[in-house]
């Protein structure tokens, strides 16, 4: 494992100063731990309390909501379905993602950065929009691919049916399943010291053996973090199942939660118990992940790091063609469908006399609340991304660099916001925003939404930064101190520049995730702090589908624009990932 160092572990300075600095590190860790514990445990504790004490006005302990939730008809079947979907999605997506990330980061495949950006695009696309796009091709009745196969005489009936178990798995892979893994693993692979691989080749190992025996073990923390995040996301995902599963009566655990919430009145306590069960299921996995990640050193960025890339030789262009085809099919095609769909009179109807229109855009832009919602969205996205980049880095630093038993606790805490579905956790956030005086001031303002979005994205941001920091050898920091740098100087001038690529990725991911998020902020959204994603939901609920598609497109384009700006700025100022 990466050697953790006390903040003040400098070889210069007096013993008193060293002691002071060492204590400063502990104090820093303690303060960060207390803050994170409060912010994370308060909303989750509210939910847990509700499931045991919320049944009656007297607040007497009871387990009725738990019984009610698990007595829901079809619960066992839905749990099995969830496990089946998650296993298949991750089983297929993870090996593919590892290969793609390795090719992009460790080989000389042409236009690697452009291809990588293609996977970023996929991450920014809304899963509902992508699902609708795929239906256009693979709907059993009117899907273009099925119709083409029939008209060409290659099939008698529909060949593909997206309304099926494998259809659901396919959509999961092509939305969150693959994109987030490639997005997060590529920088991690890029950080790998090439001399380690070279040593393996010198010892006689081939490329495959080096990948399996040397590279993958070094990537274990990153892979485990990404896998765990994907598994948790898979346990909570319900949009795809709602569209593709409901017509074929295929329910998963999260659609059960959704149905309980959709009851009148909504069964929060029963839904909360199901959400808490996900937490209980995931907690051992979090500990397992932590154990596997920290049992040995995985530092790959050291003072002597080499950045040489593997020559693909004659396979260079075929590899590029394969990756480009994947990007085109999985990113550019859905993005194109999303944009062109916003100009279509009716999405998916190509046999109309007049297919195209700009009326959806004019309607959406003329909406009385569009401009205000757009401003709010920018404030929310930028505010959350700024807080995330500055504070997540500090939290990640504490979990990786400060020697203390408490850092494990801090690490586990940062996982928790991801383990409760957003709509349930939103209820906890509402309680926190109302009852904690310091946050009550923010209630009803954009500040409250920033706070909640910051907490919601914490797992993603902190874990990505943590993995990155684990890869940076302790000697890099030690070198800074040897030449007399203070902790602040070492942190800001050495560690942060080295972590800049990961910080950029985190900033963009948080921005994109925040501006399209609805579930976490739904309780705190009002007419005064309405953001574009909420306006989109309002339009969808009102049956105004065209302008709603436009709003969705605007959100995606804003994410892409932000990503492009960060890339341009990074390149211009030399803040690039290694390799």
């Amino acid at each position, binding site marked *: 494992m990466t050697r953790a160092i006390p903040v003040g572990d400098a070889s210069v300075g007096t013993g008193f100063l060293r002691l002071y600095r060492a204590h400063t590190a502990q104090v820093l860790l303690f303060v960060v731990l207390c803050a994170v514990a409060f912010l994370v445990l308060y909303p989750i504790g509210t939910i847990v309390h509700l499931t045991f004490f919320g049944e009656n006005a007297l607040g007497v302990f009871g387990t009725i909501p738990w019984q009610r939730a698990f007595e*829901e008809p079809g619960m066992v079947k839905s749990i099995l379905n969830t496990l089946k979907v998650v296993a298949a999605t991750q089983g297929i997506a993870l090996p593919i993602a590892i290969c793609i990330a390795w090719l992009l980061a460790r080989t000389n495949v042409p236009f690697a950065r452009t291809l990588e950006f293609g996977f970023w695009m996929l991450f920014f696309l809304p899963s509902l929009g992508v699902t609708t796009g795929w239906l256009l091709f693979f709907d059993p009745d009117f899907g273009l691919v099925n119709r083409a196969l029939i008209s060409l005489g290659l099939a008698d009936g529909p060949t593909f049916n997206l309304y099926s178990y494998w259809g659901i798995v396919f959509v999961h892979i092509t939305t969150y399943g693959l994109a987030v893994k490639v997005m997060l693993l590529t920088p991690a692979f890029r950080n790998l010291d090439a001399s380690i691989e070279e040593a393996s080749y010198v010892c006689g190992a081939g490329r495959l053996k080096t990948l399996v025996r040397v590279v993958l073990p070094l990537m274990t923390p990153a892979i485990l973090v990404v896998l765990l995040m994907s598994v948790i996301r898979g346990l909570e995902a319900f949009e795809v199942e709602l569209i593709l599963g409901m017509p074929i009566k*295929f329910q998963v655990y999260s659609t059960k939660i959704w149905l309980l919430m959709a009851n*009148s009145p*909504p069964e929060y306590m029963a839904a909360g118990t199901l959400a808490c069960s996900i937490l209980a299921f995931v907690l051992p996995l979090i500990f397992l992940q932590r154990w596997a990640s920290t049992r040995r050193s995985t530092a790959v960025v050291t003072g002597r790091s080499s950045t040489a890339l593997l020559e693909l030789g004659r396979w260079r262009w075929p590899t590029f063609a394969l990756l480009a085809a994947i990007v085109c099919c999985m990113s550019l095609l859905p993005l194109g469908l999303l944009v062109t769909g916003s100009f279509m009179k009716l999405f998916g109807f190509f046999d*109309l006399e007049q297919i195209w229109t700009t009326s959806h855009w004019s309607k959406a832009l003329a909406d*009385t609340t569009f401009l205000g919602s757009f401003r709010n969205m920018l404030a929310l996205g930028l505010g959350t991304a700024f807080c995330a980049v500055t504070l997540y880095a500090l939290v990640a630093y504490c979990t990786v660099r400060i020697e203390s038993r408490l850092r494990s606790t801090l690490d586990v805490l940062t996982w928790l916001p991801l383990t409760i579905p957003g709509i349930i956790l939103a209820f906890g956030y509402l309680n926190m925003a109302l009852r904690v005086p310091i946050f009550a001031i923010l209630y009803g303002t954009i500040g409250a939404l920033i706070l909640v979005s910051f907490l919601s994205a914490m797992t993603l941001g902190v874990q990505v930064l943590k993995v990155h920091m684990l890869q940076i050898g302790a000697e890099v920091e030690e070198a800074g101190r040897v030449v007399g740098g203070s902790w602040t100087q070492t942190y800001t001038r050495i560690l942060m520049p080295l972590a800049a690529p990961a910080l950029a990725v985190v900033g963009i991911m948080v921005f994109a995730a925040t501006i399209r998020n609805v579930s976490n902020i739904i309780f705190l959204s009002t007419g005064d702090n309405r953001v574009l994603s909420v306006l989109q939901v309002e339009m969808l609920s009102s049956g105004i589908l065209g302008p709603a598609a436009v709003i969705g497109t605007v959100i995606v384009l804003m994410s892409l624009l932000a990503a492009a700006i960060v890339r341009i700025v990074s390149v211009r100022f030399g803040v690039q990932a290694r390799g």
Partner: protein
Amino acid sequence: MRRLLLALVLCIASSTAFAQSLDHPRNEVSGDRGWKAEWDEVVAAAKKEGKLVVCMSPSVGRRDFLLKQWKADYPEIDLSLSIAAGSTFVPAIITERSAGRYQWDVFHSGPNSGVTAIRAGLLDPLLPELILPEAKDPAPWGGWDEAFYDRERKYILGLSSDVQTAYYNAKVLAPERANRLGLKVLLEPDMKGKIYWFDPRGTGTGAPFLVLVERVLGREAWRKIMVEQDPTFVSSHGASAEAVVRGKAAIAFSGPVEENLREFRNAGLQFDVRDLGHTPETAYLGTDGATLAVFNKRPHPNAARVFVNWIMTKRIAEGMAVGSGYDSRRSDVPSVNPNSRAIPGAKYVMAQKDENDELLRELQSELKTLRPK
């Protein structure tokens, strides 16, 4: 003497009549002055409050009209309109209040959420808030008994009136057969797998149709439809509308799909989708999620009072009907959608009224057991 007495009686009678004839207009004037003075006072106090917070059900057309017209009529009072989904809104308010926050003035959302709000003790009676004679008169609303959706007939007023029925694709289901059988067509063997339903297990607009079918066909037939005919549940009324238009579904229950069908028509798509009929045997009478109520302990009581009177006037009711595409409940407002007009005097199933709430929950619960997947 008799003449004298007669003259005296006539004199007294005529003087009384004269006095009464003088008094009557004087009373009218004073009554007029009474409500006007009260109205002016309330408006002045509302302007001092300067703010009004309203929650409403999703309808962008209605929302835009209200924001625009309110700003034109009362520019001094800032109107904050939040779209409130029933499943999240009432629990959020209960939580707010438990933390000592009271920030909502007017409830303008669906009747189901309204009933939940009453049970949580969030609402005040509406009628005492009415000042304008135009708003106070129950006649255009069909009488308060009919217009209120809660059991006590005093909290939740239905502002819209629309007849909700099923839609069918005339190329898949012959109109003659649909007209002849009405809802019984659901029991026909060839309808198995051809019925689409906006998931009725939740709060969506597909749910009240459970009550309609049960009330019209009876519980056994309802069970048979749910189990043997295997209706397909979808996650939005847009999805069910599209299924009917494309012919995947023969018939669909989804609530207000007019806006979706209009979009298909405006795009130039050729299809023949019809409604099953507006009779009490084929449709229920609803209010399109547009009810009106006032919160208790509201922070801007005068602004709320101005709003509820204002929104109940004929002028605003007309604008709302045009904005939302659904008829006003006011009988003096011209119909914007003749298809959604109720047959005068007909006794419809009021599937969204409080009285049917328990039945709806019972049916939803049974449905979960009948279709556990």
